[in-house]
């Protein structure tokens, strides 16, 4: 396998670090009750998000789930609208109407995410269908958890996408839990990769938490979409560091032991990616400089969000429908 270039490695690290830094910003301020909405944190999934988004071009499109802080940040690189949205402010990306669970930024290719499991999968198939009809070469990616595989919408969408041969990359981020229900309570099958492999698709699996490895798999999967004119499917394992919803740990409640977390932490995506940069000869000081710039950007966005005005009350009634003129 050809080694990932220094340039791409730096981009990968920037994405991973931005997600970590922004989520630290959320955690530090959430307890002050300034973001009054549920948060589903991305910590632990950064390798998948950064790796896949790095393999996409800006004009390529992505959809995700309610756990999409990482996706938003990696796809858009934008933090002002992000934090203002978390705070429910007028300057938020959607004027405060969306919040953490309904992020979108179509101009940067983030079509949207949704808080009902599996609901964006068919939408992604439609986005990809339109791209196919328009012959614009754009790739669409849809991120979902392993719980989504139990929803009918997943199978309906997989079938349609394979039938119509749309340029769509399915990314299953498997953390082993649907809220707190483990695989044993939910899975009536052995291997999702085997089943999806029976469809007209290209299937890839990995348990790596190295962003470079994911980037290479995603690149290959996207190339296969172009080459075979069939959708690709990635089944990727990761470990959710924090509770299902909220900014704290949940190892005390009993459904998973902290020893698991410690095991996965040894291969923490940020730690691995930082090590990759050092191995490529990038100096510690240069990395620290990168980190400082990102931390400053996050701090500034949080400060802007804190001081931004609330939406006008009249906003409640606006944009239910599009009105001409």
């Amino acid at each position, binding site marked *: 396998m050809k080694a990932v270039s220094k340039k791409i490695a730096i981009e990968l690290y920037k994405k991973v670090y931005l997600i970590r830094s922004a989520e630290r910003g959320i955690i530090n301020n959430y307890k002050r009750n300034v973001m009054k909405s549920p948060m589903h944190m991305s910590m632990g999934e950064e390798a998948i998000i950064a790796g896949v988004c790095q393999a996409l071009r800006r004009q390529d*499109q992505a959809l995700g789930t309610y756990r999409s802080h990482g996706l938003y940040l990696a796809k858009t690189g934008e933090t002002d609208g992000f934090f203002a949205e978390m705070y429910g402010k007028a300057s938020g990306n959607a004027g405060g109407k969306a919040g953490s669970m309904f992020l*979108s930024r179509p101009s940067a290719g983030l079509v*949207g995410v949704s808080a009902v499991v599996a609901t964006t999968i*068919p939408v992604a198939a*439609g986005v990809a*269908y*339109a791209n196919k009809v328009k012959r614009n070469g754009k790739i669409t990616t849809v991120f979902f958890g392993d719980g989504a595989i139990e929803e*009918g919408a997943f199978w309906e969408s997989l079938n349609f996408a394979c039938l119509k041969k749309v340029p769509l990359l399915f990314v299953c981020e498997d953390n082993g839990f649907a809220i707190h229900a483990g695989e044993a309570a939910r899975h009536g099958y052995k291997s999702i990769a085997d089943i999806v492999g029976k469809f007209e698709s290209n299937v890839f699996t990995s348990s790596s938490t190295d962003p470079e490895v994911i980037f290479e798999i995603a690149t290959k999967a996207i190339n296969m979409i172009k080459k075979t004119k069939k959708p690709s499917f990635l089944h990727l394992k990761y470990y959710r560091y924090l509770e299902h919803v909220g900014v704290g740990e949940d190892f005390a409640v009993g459904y998973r032991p902290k020893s698991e977390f410690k095991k996965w932490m040894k291969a923490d995506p940020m730690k691995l990616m930082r090590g990759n940069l050092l191995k490529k000869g990038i100096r510690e000081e240069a990395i620290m400089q990168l980190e400082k710039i990102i931390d400053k950007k996050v701090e500034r966005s949080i400060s802007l969000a804190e001081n931004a005005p609330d939406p006008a009350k009249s906003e409640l009634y606006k*944009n239910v*429908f599009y009105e001409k003129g």
Partner: protein
Amino acid sequence: MPPTPQNPSCIKTYFMKKGRYITYKDALREALLQEMERDHRIFVYGLGVPDHNAIFGTTKGLLEKFGPERVFDTPLSEDAMTGVGLGAALNGLIPVHHHIRVDFLLLAFNQLANMVSVWRYASGGRVKVPFVIRAIIGRGWGQGAQHSKSTQAVFAHIPGLKVVMPSTPRDAKGLLVSALRDDNPVIIFEHRWLYDQEGEVPEESFTTPLGKGSILRKGKDITVVATSWMNVEAHHASEILKQRGVSVEIVDPRTIYPLDEKIIVDSVKKTGHCIVADNGWLNCGFSAEVAAVVSNKCFGELKSPVERIGFPATPCPMARVLENEFYPNAADIVRVIEKKLKLEPSDLSGEIFYSYEKRFKGPF
């Protein structure tokens, strides 16, 4: 010529003016043809769209003319296919999704209530969702509990969806054209008995505005607000009562949401009486919505309480005798009008009421 079972084209008698007469289904087909020619972003899809039945003929010939990328059959996946429509709409196409039974549209309720209706609002108004959904409603021929629903109230309850029920061929065309140009999700409910109704429809393309009702019959004694097929029944009832000197005004809201309250309120203020004949269940139904609007805005002018006619709170049964009990018709409207105007009951024994029997033998 009065409507008879031999001449089910009641609307032809009542609604027609001079001009070209075509059926409701041909009017829908013409709208699709003309709009698809005009706007290359439009594609039509759904189970049965390109088959020999072609959604009661409304999509006939579209595949041959526009090709399989713009006209296609789908897997039996109503939920996902609705999501596909949303995604295509977000990427600049205009999907028209067809359901040969509104009962099947309910499989897509998740996408409609959680996604399609919400998307623009939750994007902060940055995107548009031009998405038309056509679904067939209403009574057929022993269709029973899962092939004959009328769910306008269910969908009109959800902010972000427009709900349309054309009653005349002219409105079928004009409202479908408007829906295709609206840049919002619009659900069109088409009663299967209306497909063969004939009426005057201009050949050239035209729009009938969404959110605007129409006075289908001018009158001064009593207002009947009717939806979909119930307009045909209301006209029959009006003809019967005309012979006794009663002048009935029929208001067809045409759009269930957003509702043209003014046209209803103006009519009721004039007549002082209001009956709502909705092609749907009474409980928590559209008729209750209209009754609430009328009692709120016409309280001083009302000479009697608002009366509602619709389906009882039961599933629709198959047996003909029970089906006839389930569906109200012109006779029911006559009786309610007589009650409100304190008239002796008319002798309806010689009257022949509309029935599908003479025209249709099934099985579909």
